[in-house]
């Protein structure tokens, strides 16, 4: 899987490049619009991680050109700009996902993975993890065989956890996916909902909670 990283901040680019390489992707860095155009003309890529503020232009213009030119691979925008307007703009122009800086490398990896998986078209209707089963069609949830009643928000949150079992979910990602809020909320709403999930899916006696707090980042379904 070849991934093009368009990012002019050398150190950030290095981090992303190294992390993607560790996950057995084949990353390549382009530090400007021109370099990105060349790279894409030279060989096909499976996905692009695109920074918006580039020295010789705007990443959004680049994206517009690519989409107009028939480039259909997933594009993840990585931006230090203020999220609200740019995020909507980016998604309107054909970006597949949007990640605001500062970001967690784990989250970047999770999003890239999810983009590539979406591209592969693997859709499951039934999720299962450590005794929790979720039927995405009937929205029936069971834990250790017994049915569990969930509100719609709790369901959305649980689904997100199950689809990313074992991975760290940042607060930003959770609030984006479950609340469709484009920026972080100052309230502890996410913590409260995770607490509710913990009550409904109690850890086996003596064991640690299924929904682990990752301090400074977010949560993880262990």
């Amino acid at each position, binding site marked *: 899987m070849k991934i093009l990283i368009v990012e002019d901040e050398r150190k950030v680019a290095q981090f992303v490049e190294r992390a993607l390489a560790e996950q057995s992707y084949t990353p390549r860095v382009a530090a400007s619009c021109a370099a990105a155009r060349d790279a894409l003309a030279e060989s096909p890529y499976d996905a692009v991680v695109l920074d918006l503020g580039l020295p010789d232009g705007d990443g959004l213009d680049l994206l517009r050109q690519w989409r107009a030119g028939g480039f259909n691979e997933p594009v993840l925008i990585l931006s230090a700009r203020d999220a609200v307007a740019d995020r909507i703009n980016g998604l309107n122009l054909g970006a597949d996902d949007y990640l605001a800086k500062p970001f967690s490398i784990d989250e970047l990896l999770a999003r890239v993975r999810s983009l590539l998986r979406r591209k592969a078209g693997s859709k499951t209707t039934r999720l299962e993890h450590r005794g929790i089963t979720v039927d995405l069609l009937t929205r029936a949830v069971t834990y250790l065989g017994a049915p569990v009643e969930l509100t719609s928000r709790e369901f959305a949150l649980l689904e997100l956890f199950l689809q990313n079992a074992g991975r760290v979910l940042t*607060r930003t990602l959770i609030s984006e996916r479950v609340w469709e809020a484009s920026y972080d909320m100052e309230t502890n*709403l996410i913590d409260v*909902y995770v607490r509710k999930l913990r009550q409904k899916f109690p850890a086996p006696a003596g064991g640690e909670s299924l929904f682990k707090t990752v301090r*400074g980042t977010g949560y993880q379904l262990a």
Partner: protein
Amino acid sequence: MKGSLTTRLAWQFATLLTLTTVVVLAAGGWMLWRQSVRSLELLHEVEGAELTELLGKDSRLSGADIHRLIHNDAGSDASLYFIQVHHTDGTVLYRSANMADAILPMSLADERDHRTTTLPGVGDVRVSEFHQGPWHLQIASPLSQISRLLRDYAEVSGSLVFGVALAGVVLGYAFGRVTLRPVREIESTARRIDAHNLRERIRVSPARDELSGLATLLNQMFDRLEGSFEQVKRFTADASHELKTPLALIRLNAERLRARVTNDQEAAAGLDDLMEEIARMNRIIESLLFIAKAESGVLSLTLSEHEVPALLGPFAEDARVLAEDRGVRFEFVRDDAGLMRVEPALLRQLLLNLVGNAVGVSAPGSRVTLESMRVAAGWRLVVADEGPGLPPEHVEKIFERFVRYEHAGASGGGNGLGLAICRSIAELHGGRIRAENREDVRRGLRVIVDLPKRPQAEAAGG
């Protein structure tokens, strides 16, 4: 506004035109009268000269003599005019037959004299008086013909004035429309120019008149406005980039280190703290940039209409969960139906901040309420708690940036920007937000958000 100016111009124009016509016609009438009377007087003078010659200077002529003289030589004139002759001593020697019993009053003046007087049975007459030798000659003509002429003139003038007044209103309105068209163009263009559309300029007519001067002036103002908007936009984008890029690197490094020190409790806790602070800092940066953009008008919202119970339902669920977690009851006490014109994500943020604060200051077991009311001007949203309330001098200030009070600042987790953001959001919707201490219960705070049906800029445009 523009309608009334056109109407005003039309009225002013019509009034001016009508007055001018009235003055001109009145002057014309006066001249006509003067000329008619003057021509009578001239006729009298000719007649007077003729009669003087006829009578001669012999003062011994008797009335009968005079009668004969006139009858023989000027009989037709005597039926045309009223003629009266008397001696300097006052004896009347002759009166023309057409005068019947009427007597022309004598003038006291010595000179030749013209005046108007009324004869019984005849009406107004113009009398000319000549002193010649021993005779006082009086020749008079009725003014009835002139009066009739003037009456006709007045009638024609009246209908003319009426017509002119009508035409004046119509013409004035047309004139107003035409004159004000450039002003209307300027107005509609200026109205279109807002945060979304700062490029457009008012068309400056090639004629170098007052209006093109005004348009140029306004365009210069828009140039400056666009400049400062661009500056704010660029500044916020730059600030965002410059602040967040290093933050991103710190975050990435901390994360990498964190993965390596899983066995070192103390280092791990330190790095966790670091990452939490980075997240907090990021929130502050975003909040500040949001407020900066909102306050400078750079941020433009796409407002759309939403069914209200459907819009607030999911939020109420979140609020209930949030409150229950702290042992506080959340009640959605009033939920009117209707359409609200908002940006839903921002409205949620606003309400969540308010409810979050209210829950933060509430003692377990107390109540936080939300009311969503349809009012004449739009919508009113009220979040009320039973917390400690605020000292009166702080009530006004809690929506300012970085203002935090023991009571208002939730559980101390806020950064003092939450309520400032609430105010920005309310104002972005053209609305207002205010707080007041509750008087219906022993204590507590009530925050009231008023959102207009349509934001002001648009409302004014309609």
